[in-house]
């Protein structure tokens, strides 16, 4: 299965490298222009320099204004920064140790641990292989099914993700503070299954329902034709939190606030 990644992740991976290549190629462009018309080369160099400065300042200004005016922008920046910081400060030692152990003793729990560490690094292709082997060796480990489901979810394999998360929930009800149940519900919603509402309601009832849970419940309710229930769920998702939310949960709260504006409600 080919690993999938979002547009943002792909841009982050390819963007800086493309920029370096563009800078490397720029003199060649100017030499070619100079060979045909020296004045044109000078004009292009000057205008491009001015345009680059203008674009950089405009981008900075737009970014600042977006952060001030449009609430998800700030939450988006916070989530991006948190993800970047997590990836930069990821400890290499546990993965090296776990891979070393796995080389000597192959067990389901070791495969699950290696898979978990690969998933944290967003190396979903590698993680999938280890989770598949882990559940093959021992299909009774709830955490392996749950993590397997999360990786499949990230790969947009909704049906397989729903099954894996359902298995985790069945083996250990309330596994990972309800995360398996939540992703089970969401995957079923993305498959167009109307039963997703019940699963997401169950999650909200049993685990309190944070902004993400409530937002996903609201989307499922809209799909089943219950706008009032959806508005209530959105209001719950957008409500000011009692404690500081994580960057990920804060992003879902910001999305809920924007959706509420569209529906004429307020958070």
């Amino acid at each position, binding site marked *: 299965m080919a690993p999938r990644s979002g547009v943002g992740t792909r841009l982050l*991976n390819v963007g800086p*490298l493309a920029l*370096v*290549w563009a*800078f*490397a*190629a*720029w*003199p*060649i462009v*100017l*030499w070619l222009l*100079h060979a045909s*018309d*020296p*004045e044109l*080369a*000078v*004009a292009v*160099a*000057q205008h491009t320099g001015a345009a680059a400065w203008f674009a950089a300042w405009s981008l900075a200004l737009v970014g600042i204004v977006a952060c001030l005016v449009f609430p998800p922008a700030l939450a988006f920046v916070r989530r991006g920064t948190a993800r970047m910081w997590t990836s*930069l*400060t*990821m*400890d*290499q*030692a546990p993965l090296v140790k776990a891979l070393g152990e796995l080389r000597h003793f192959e067990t389901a729990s070791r495969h699950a641990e290696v898979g978990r560490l690969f998933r944290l690094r967003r190396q979903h292709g590698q993680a999938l292989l280890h989770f598949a082997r882990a559940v093959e060796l021992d299909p009774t480990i709830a955490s392996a099914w749950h993590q397997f489901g999360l990786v499949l979810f990230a790969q947009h394999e909704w049906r397989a993700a729903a099954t894996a998360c359902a298995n985790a929930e069945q083996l250990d009800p309330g596994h990972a503070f309800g995360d398996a149940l939540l992703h089970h519900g969401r995957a079923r919603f993305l498959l167009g299954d109307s039963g997703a509402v019940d699963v997401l309601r169950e999650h909200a009832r049993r685990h309190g329902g944070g902004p993400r849970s409530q937002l996903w419940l609201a989307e499922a309710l809209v799909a089943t034709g219950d706008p009032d229930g959806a508005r209530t769920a959105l209001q719950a998702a957008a409500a000011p939190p009692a404690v500081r939310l994580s960057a990920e949960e804060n992003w879902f709260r910001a999305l809920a606030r924007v959706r509420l504006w569209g529906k004429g409600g307020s958070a």
Partner: protein
Amino acid sequence: MRDVLREVDDIPVTLTVVIAYVTLAFVTGMFAGDEQFGERLAEFGWLVPMAVADGEPWRLLAHAFLHGGPLHLAFNLMTLWTIGPALERSLGSVRFAALYATAAIGGALAVCLIYDPRQPVVGGSGALFGMMGAAVAMNMRSGRHVFAFLDFEGPRRLLGTIAVNLVLGFAIPFVSNTAHIGGLVTGFAVTFLWLRAGTPSAALRQWRLATAALFVSVLAWSVWPVTRSDWLHRAAERAESAQQARSLLEAARRATPRDNRLELGRPGR
């Protein structure tokens, strides 16, 4: 070949560079109060972007062994003697020499790109900043994650030293901080991307290729800066036809900064 490299790896590069600094200081007449000191610096290879573009690319490296005065020499000797031996022991002499040369050229390229093309620059500080950048990169590479080194006092002080030196570079008008930053970035990138053991990953190979292409491209641009006024003027002098010369002169006029154009236009001053 491996045996030869092993033999070369025993050469004490830091000591060799120190000897080169001091010898060139005497040869250029730094301590003799010689009136010809400036001319000798020019002759021995101070970095003037205009001269580099005029067929003297060896100045990109040569300037890193010359110094503008006893204080300048003393500061650079002290820094080299503080960082050099430890870094050389870690990297090996051949890699250390390659790092010194690349960082010196990197600093010079930054000067050629950004600085006034007529302004001369001397000193090994670009290369020394490159060594500091290399030390930071080595620390980042050796920890459990790239910022793990911040838990330790020594590497934190190294960052502080770099910051203080950069601030001083901005504060003192005759210091070329452009060369410092160019050297720092080059030294860091060379060590982070190139000077590491083990089989490189596909992503690392891509980055190595891209940065090498950028380095070569900027190097070639410093020698043929086809949109810079001084190079266009020289090209016009060498033009084969009157029409080509006119076109190059017009391009040179366009490329000349507006303030300079007015100054050149005043007759008799």
